[in-house]
């Protein structure tokens, strides 16, 4: 696997991500990996020391990671939020809106298709974890 596709300005975090259990046992880890069935809220007390949260997508159909990402961003997490696994190119836009800013897909993505799909929609209907202004806000200021 090559370098993750990153939308951050800083360099990708190097420290390998540990499991949630290992992270909760260690006082100094700065990277953690969440499996789909693990509750992101367990990380909320430790956001200050986290630099990377990697959220696993063993299958693209399992959408729990989208909620996990938003919960972390809503709590103010600023570090790297990486989607790893069965991540499809047509899912990147939704993942970006949920707060993911780096991607480590198992199957490489065509950068041109990624770019096209991220540029596709000028407007969105709802507020999410990104800065995109929803159309109701554009309508009413």
């Amino acid at each position, binding site marked *: 696997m090559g370098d993750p596709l990153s939308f951050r300005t800083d360099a990708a975090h190097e420290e390998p991500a540990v499991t949630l259990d290992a992270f909760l046992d260690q006082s100094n880890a700065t990277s953690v990996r969440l499996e789909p069935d693990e509750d992101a809220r367990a990380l909320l007390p430790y956001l200050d020391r986290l630099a990377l949260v990697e959220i696993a997508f063993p299958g693209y159909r399992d959408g729990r990671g989208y909620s996990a990402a938003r919960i972390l961003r809503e709590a103010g997490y600023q570090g790297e939020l990486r989607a790893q696994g069965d991540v499809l190119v047509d899912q990147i*836009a939704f993942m970006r809106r*949920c707060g993911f800013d780096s991607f480590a897909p198992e199957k490489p993505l065509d950068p041109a*298709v990624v770019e096209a799909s991220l540029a596709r929609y*000028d407007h969105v*209907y709802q507020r999410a974890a990104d800065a995109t202004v929803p*159309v109701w806000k554009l309508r009413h200021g």
Partner: protein
Amino acid sequence: MYKYDQYDQSIVDARVEEFRDQVNRRLSGALSEDQFKPLRLMNGLYLQLHAYMLRVAVPYGTLDGRQMRMLGHIARKYDRGYGHFTTRQNIQYNWIKLEEAPDILADLASVEMHAIQTSGNCIRNISSDQYAGAASDEVTDPRPWAELLRQWSTFHPEFSYLPRKFKIAVIAAAEDRAAMRLHDIGIELVRNEAGTLGGKIFVGGGMGRTPMIAPEIKDFVPAEDLLSYLEACLRVYNRHGRRDNIYKARIKILVHEIGAEDYRRQVEEEFAHVKTLGIDPPAAELERITAFFAPPAFATGLSDELDLSDPDFRLWVQQNVAAHAQPGYAIANISLKPVGGIPGDATADQIDLMGDLAERYSFDELRVTHAQNIVLPHVRKADLYAVWQALDEAGLATPNLDLISDIIACPGLDYCSLANARSIPVAQKIAERFADLDRQRDLGELKLKISGCINACGHHHAGHIGILGVDRKGTENYQLLLGGSGAEDVSLGKITGPGFDEDGIVDAVEKVTDTYKSLRQDGERFVDTYRRVGIEPFKEAIYG
């Protein structure tokens, strides 16, 4: 009716281009069928037994004449000259070519329509009361709220890969014409003691192989909290809904397994957080949408008199016309259930005609009902005869609304790759057996619903009489259920016993109606008698 602004149009146009790109990638081989499948499914394109099927969204079942005629155009140009109206208030085309699907979406976008989220494990088309804005028993028109939810749920980034599909209904009347409590989330708009409108929220209803009636989760959510509250409902589901078994993945299973009380507690906890995020639009947005649904310019001082001297017209009025809130107006139901026909099917010419009639006689509005019929919601009583004549000439004046031949049926094994048995021929045989209209009218309101497999697209659990087709050792077998209802007296049907073959089920239905006739008391509908006497007399008649 709602009209797109530049934002709505730009989103739908972008979707057309996105799907065109995805189809091109599929046709060029860049995408395998496996990779393409989730993409096409998000756009309502299914691979069926014989061809692709495209499901087009009719948000909350409302459309205008121009949109209706576009549906006719699509049937004519891209299908075999007909379309199929569904229990989700949508329309499906069964003979679609993949390479033409993007052009169909472009045609739809030109009249402010789309196929977004008509399939996939996401929030589906919002359904509502087909009499909205016309019924005298509503506290408000539910459609502005449904449109608010349509926009909120469209391309929702967090809830597009849910454990399973997710259906929401909004009603605002005491009479439930939308099977509200058989949805994943049902919302009944009510006024609180202060006179403020808000939603009573029911969560965890559904049909399928494990039918459930949604319990009430919250008695009142004001407009300004509605989206936050729904996000909380969905987030708890997304977190805990089962993903190990597709048949246990709907929210009804979660609510049932943890209990309504625990589910409510988790939603309330999540809501307290979500409410701080600023995701609810200002009141001005619901007001903006509501303005589109202002009542049409009804004439006042009209007479309620009707000349019923034509006996066929009189029959149609008695059976298919409902009271309107406005004096001098009526709600006209167009039955898509002629005896021997396919429930919900209409030809391109019939679709065009219904669009024309709406434009001319119904303030340019039509509705699709979950019972697979069409409604002209605002017809002057003085125009009813002309409307009826035009419908009659087109084979659209069958006077059987809510009678035994007004059957809901899924496409079944004739089209659907999931089905175990055919539904359409059974519906046709039952309609033929009861073809005599006097006999049907004597039986009164009798909702008969047929599904060709356990997924229950034909709503058999909610039929006064329900029929479920199953595969038994390689032959089609039909089980009979009695006592269901999708209305405000919501209930789930009970299986009578061993199933029947295709002719046997028709005989069994007849024995059931004969038993009803022998047991009914004054004014009792079939389902009332059933509830009073229980299943035993019916079982005895069928199997005894």
